[in-house]
């Protein structure tokens, strides 16, 4: 169950969201958490306490965000926290809150407890375990759920299907067994209960027998069910192993591992390696990955028939050990219809916590583009005349086609124009838009017969130190982040980079003159490149603002820095991640930006706020890449837990979870129409996703190493991918998506039938000599720019 994955981060969030004055408590918590991670055994208890917070909403986080809105206008700098205290405390929140209070009390932070309690308006005795329980039951009851902790065997059996998201999406379970009474093991707010999930003792020697039994059974069922039921093996194996380890049966655990680890799917190999290192109970405490595995539910999708088979078998065998694990740690998403085939299952599995629940991808996503503001300026005509004078008769017509018509009618799938407050267009932005339109008319129409040219920017003498690259939208500047903590900016046009004059010199300038913008620049500082110092660790992410005035960089030192490209100095260091920040990106409309890092949360910031506006938490491992949707209403994050999540910027909720990658995801790209998402991972595959339906719609195989960059051409016809294997590959995105639209995919079951047509879709492969491709960019005229550091 993903609900349990928010943990510490959502704690911070909850605290933050509910009681602004208490923010220092959140920091204290964070520090505590760090201490727990770093301190090893001594502090481990604190740590695990935090981890097992039973949040009840469907996505494990962000209820608190509901109470907050983005500050009304990006221009206004009013405090974002001002309206939070008025937020209503829902029952679900209350539960969470109780857990927080309990934790605080345990750690003798009584003052904070007091403040928090007062803020939330809870009664004095709310920390009493009894009251606690009733509160929990009450909230459960609201969703029509009866707590049957410790019921008899038959009701235990029925629990498994019922236990689920009670919070925001309570009635979503349509799969509860009709014969059994719907019962749910609502997790107690008492944190120690979940911790001891493994304390139940079985005979350690029998584990092998149980597992072998089940294996034999699954091997003998009908072919059509076998593939589905085989999904059970991996989570079961891991949990049984962890149970053995947890209960100090070291040698049995080892024997168990050796015997059955070879049976697991190859894409779990990485996790198995981690698992094999873990042989002692003490090890489990510090290991976040495994804690996640224990506290979150592994999601399986199984057809009703297959599930019945499994259930019957286990009932017959009285195999309570396995049954308990299935109940406690697995979430089985049952669907009606044909069992899925092996290839279908393999396509979707591979993530750390199983597949996404179907409900997780049901929310409506407004993937359409925002209406472009109408810019019809006299200036435009002038320029066109100038063009005509030069003897280029091609003009208006294509412009009307490409830009005008699109912006006229509102896309039904688009969010309302002010769903997210966006910054107003400045004059310079309008000029840039005009430039963009002009360039767009000269854009080359790409296609399988008309491939883009690729210009490669090679970083020489980087000594393996180049870690991030970005290009401005108009392709005039290129920036590199380096392992030596520097950020460098180059101009790739003849126009050199200049700083603004010093304050004293600026005073001398005639402010009324027409070319004041030109006069403020200091000619003496003109150079082709500039270096910016400020970070204290490798720079892993870098992003230009759309107006080319700012540059963002995220670094190992835990900060995101905003640099001015007028003065080439650092303006702000956004602190909050505390751990390496792997990626950052500006919103396509500027002002907002998103960052994600080792602390497993992505944060949404506005450049004029030193604290994040939103915290997106839910990933089970590092967030490795972050991307804004073209309409700026959504953010996609890729993670080492091998899932991709799409977050709603407005509510902070996770609205899509995509599983299917078999390795950490290192690159994401939205198609220009906002409908599709492409993702690349260490497994060398590119996967294509339909955002509206929440389905995988394509798989592009060909790369042999990590894909570090993905980019759609400006009109979305071509997808370019760049990889560690020193190649740039071009894919026919039109065809990949076209084939799809004729298909009526059975959205109801969420099944996909992927045909293996990677070879047909591959349009070109271009090998560099020895330069991994880490960034790709289509210019406004559809010339592909690639960048990477030569690796001798």
């Amino acid at each position, binding site marked *: 169950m993903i609900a349990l994955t928010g943990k510490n981060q959502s704690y911070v969030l909850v605290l933050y969201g509910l009681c602004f004055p208490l923010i220092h408590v959140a920091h204290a918590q964070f520090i505590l958490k*760090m201490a727990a*991670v*770093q301190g090893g055994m001594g502090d481990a208890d604190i740590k695990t306490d935090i981890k097992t917070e039973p949040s009840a909403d469907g996505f494990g986080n962000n209820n608190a965000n509901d109470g907050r809105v983005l500050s009304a206008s990006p221009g206004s700098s009013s405090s974002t926290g001002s309206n939070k205290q008025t937020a209503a405390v829902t029952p679900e929140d209350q539960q969470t809150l109780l857990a927080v209070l309990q934790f605080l009390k345990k750690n003798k932070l009584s003052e904070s407890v007091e403040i928090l309690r007062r803020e939330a308006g809870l009664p004095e005795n709310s920390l009493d375990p009894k009251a606690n329980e009733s509160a929990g039951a009450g909230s459960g009851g609201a969703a029509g759920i009866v707590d049957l902790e410790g019921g008899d065997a038959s009701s235990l059996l029925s629990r498994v299907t019922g236990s689920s998201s009670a919070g925001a999406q309570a009635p979503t379970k349509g799969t509860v067994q009709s014969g059994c009474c719907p019962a749910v093991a609502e997790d107690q707010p008492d944190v120690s209960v979940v911790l001891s999930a493994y304390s139940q003792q079985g005979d350690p020697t029998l584990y092998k027998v149980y597992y072998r039994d089940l294996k034999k059974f699954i091997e003998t069922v009908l072919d059509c069910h076998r593939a589905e039921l085989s999904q059970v093996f991996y989570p079961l194996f891991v949990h049984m192993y962890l149970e053995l380890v947890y209960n100090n049966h070291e040698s049995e655990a080892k024997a168990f591992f050796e015997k059955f680890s070879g049976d697991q799917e190859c894409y779990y190999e990485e996790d198995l*390696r*981690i698992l*094999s*290192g*873990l*042989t*002692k109970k003490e090890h489990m405490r*510090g290991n976040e990955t495994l804690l996640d595995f224990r506290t979150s539910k592994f999601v399986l999708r199984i057809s009703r028939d297959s599930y019945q088979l499994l259930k019957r078998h286990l009932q017959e065998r009285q195999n309570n050990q396995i049954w308990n694990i299935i109940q406690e740690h697995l979430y089985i998403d049952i669907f009606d219809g044909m069992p899925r085939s092996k290839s279908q299952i393999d396509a979707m599995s591979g993530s750390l916590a199983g597949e996404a629940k179907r409900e997780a991808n049901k929310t409506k996503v407004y993937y359409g583009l925002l209406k472009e503001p109408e810019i019809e300026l006299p200036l435009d005509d002038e320029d066109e005349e100038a063009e005509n004078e030069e003897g280029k008769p091609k003009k208006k017509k294509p412009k009307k086609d490409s830009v005008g018509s699109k912006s006229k009618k509102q896309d039904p799938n688009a969010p309302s124009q002010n769903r997210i407050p966006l910054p107003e267009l400045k004059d310079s932005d309008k000029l840039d838009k005009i430039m963009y339109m002009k360039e767009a008319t000269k854009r080359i129409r790409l296609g399988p017969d*008309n*491939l*883009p*040219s*690729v*210009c*490669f*920017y*090679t*970083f*020489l*003498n980087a000594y*393996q*130190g*180049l*870690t991030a690259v970005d290009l401005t939208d108009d392709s005039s500047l*290129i920036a*590199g982040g*380096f*392992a030596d903590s520097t950020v*460098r900016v180059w101009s*790739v046009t003849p126009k050199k980079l200049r700083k603004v004059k010093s304050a004293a010199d600026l005073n001398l300038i005639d402010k009324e003159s027409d070319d004041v913008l030109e006069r403020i620049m200091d000619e003496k500082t003109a150079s082709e*490149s500039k270096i910016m110092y400020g970070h204290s660790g*490798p720079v*892993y992410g870098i992003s230009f603002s759309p107006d080319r005035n700012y540059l963002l960089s995220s670094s*190992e030192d835990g900060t995101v820095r905003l640099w001015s490209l007028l003065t080439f100095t650092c303006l702000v260091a956004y602190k909050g991640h505390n751990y*390496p920040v*792997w990626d950052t990106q500006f919103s396509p409309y500027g002002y907002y930006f998103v960052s994600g890092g*080792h602390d497993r949360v992505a944060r949404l910031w506005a450049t004029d706020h030193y604290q994040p506006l939103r915290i997106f938490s839910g990933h089970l491992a*590092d967030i*490795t890449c972050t991307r804004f949707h073209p309409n700026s209403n959504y953010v996609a994050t890729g993670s*080492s837990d091998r899932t991709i999540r799409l977050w709603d910027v407005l509510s902070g909720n996770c609205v899509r979870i995509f599983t299917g990658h078999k390795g*950490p995801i*290192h690159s994401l790209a939205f198609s220009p129409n906002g409908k599709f998402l492409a993702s690349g991972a*260490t497994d060398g595959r590119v996967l294509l996703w339909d955002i509206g339906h929440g389905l995988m719609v394509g798989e592009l195989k060909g790369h042999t190493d*990590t894909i*570090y960059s993905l980019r759609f051409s400006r009109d979305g016809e071509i997808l370019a991918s760049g990889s*560690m294997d020193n190649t*740039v590959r071009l894919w026919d995105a039109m065809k990949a998506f076209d084939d799809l639209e004729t298909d009526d995919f059975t959205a109801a079951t969420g099944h996909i039938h992927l045909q293996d047509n990677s070879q047909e879709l591959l349009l*070109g492969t*271009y*090998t*560099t*000599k020895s*330069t*991994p491709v880490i960034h790709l960019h289509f210019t406004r005229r559809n010339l592909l720019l690639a960048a990477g*550091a*030569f690796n*001798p």
Partner: protein
Amino acid sequence: MAEERRQKHCSVVLPTESMKAMAESVGVGQLQEDSCVALSEEVSYRIKEIAQDALKFMHHGKRRKLTTSDIDNALKLKNVEPLYGFQSQEFIPFRFASGGGRELHFYEEKEADLSDIINTPLPRVPLDVSLKAHWLSIEGMQPAIPENPPPATKEQQKAESTEPLKVVKPGQEEEGTIQGKSQGTTTPDGKGKEKGLIRLKPRSTHELSVEQQLYYKEITEACVGSCEAKRAEALQSIATDPGLYQMLPRFSTFISEGVRVNVVQNNLALLIYLMRMVKALMDNPTLYLEKYLHELIPAVVTCIVSKQLCLRPDVDNHWALRDFAARLMAQSCKTFSTTTNNIQSRITKTFTKSWLDDKTQWTTRYGCIAGLAELGSDVIKTLIIPRLAVEGARIKAVMEGPVVSNIDKIGAEHVQSLLLKHCASVIAKLRPQPDNVDQYRTDYGYLGPMLCSHVMKARTQAALQAQQVNRTTLTITQPRPTLSVSQSGLSGSSGPRTPSIIKVPSSLTLMSPRPGTPSQPSPPATKYIVMATSAGAASTQQVITLSSSQSASPVTSTVPSATSTLQPLVKLESGSGAGLTASRPLQKYIVVSLPSSASSSLETKSSVLPTSISSSSLDGGMKLERSESPGASTQSPH
């Protein structure tokens, strides 16, 4: 520490002994076995954890290689103080030792002598990061420029030539796409099919595109034309361009036909040009010539042993051509000789057979000996030295007997100096020290006394060379270029190749110092400044002027063949045929070194060279025109 680092790769637990060893190193004497086991398990687990985190940093650093800084960062993540002192090295500096059943990894800490550190010249300032753009693809086609990988790699060409019928190869698919691309992306399929159909005739030549045809025409014309600057450019292009694979059959035919015609017409200059083309082809690192050896080897051998190569054998320096061709031959033997084609043994047999023939003329005799001598000291030892006495007698007959013809005499002279040159160094190694003239006379007959003096000279030189190394290193390494866009390793993406790296005055050619050479007169007093421009940015030059002690020999020095891809260019500024014709006592050498780490030692050698190895001036001339770009694998014709 040492053990830990190594074992993190395997999924095993550290041995308890290492725990003990480490405990001892921090002063804990008696560690109980139980504690050791517990410790080692714990430590192994933590190390694995850190390794996993370090991998994360490696991935985000976009590298394939885990560095010590990744581990430092991972430690930092866990709030552990990173290990200090391991940053600088490229590799992890642990060394392994075993003995007494114990294995140990340790960090070697050498005692550093401060004065050494002070005296060593400062290392070069690392080059700054720079940005360079090139076309990876133009409308779907990958242009064959040096920045891009060659259309067909050498390995592929080799595989194709050695196993021509085995069509389905592992790299097949890729090769197909690459070829398809170079032909235009629209027809990759057709191309592939064609390939399948012509399985029985895999060596059929491809049709060249218009651009390629133009290129071919330009290049061949420049190579045999009269403009030396153009020629240098063309040869440079042949030696470095990666996209010549498809034109190779044409070039090969051009050379073999050209040699056939020009040998008949005794056109020495053209023969030399053609041989230089062969050399350039061999120098090209992206070409695999084996398929075309059947055309190239006869051409080269012709230039070695042909009875007559020029119109006026008494004046023209065809000897230099023979030397040069012989070196080419030796080089191709080294590169292409396998047990199946037996090039080396076949060539050896051919040379030996005609050498043993009494009726062989002096010119051919010279070629045979040169060809054999270039094959290496083993060949000299087994084939040439035993015949010194016989050959000596033959030379004596010509030199001291009644004058038969001037041509014969010159021939004999050349053979004599050739034998002395090659045999001296070999004999110096073979024979024990006291060099007795009488002993030499009995062993080697007529040539004995001269050999003796040459051997002695070779010995003193070897000693001198050893002495001089230190001193010269210092003086020469200092004026290193400090700024350059590309390094040796960067050939691939280095700057736009300067078309002609060496500014060659048109008259500066390979021809001999002897005046009267018909084709290339070399103006005596010109001074040539040779620039080595490393692609793109800065250029440096070093000029070393040495006065030669060998006024007797018209022969300039050459650089010993180097294993490195770079070598300094030694230029003969103006050759003086002191012994024979004009007298110019002073020889100037302009040594231009390219920026390279390897160049220092070479420069050292070159500075002492005038007294050591000597070869014909042709060689000097050859070098003169070699315009080397960093990374182009170059071999001296040795």
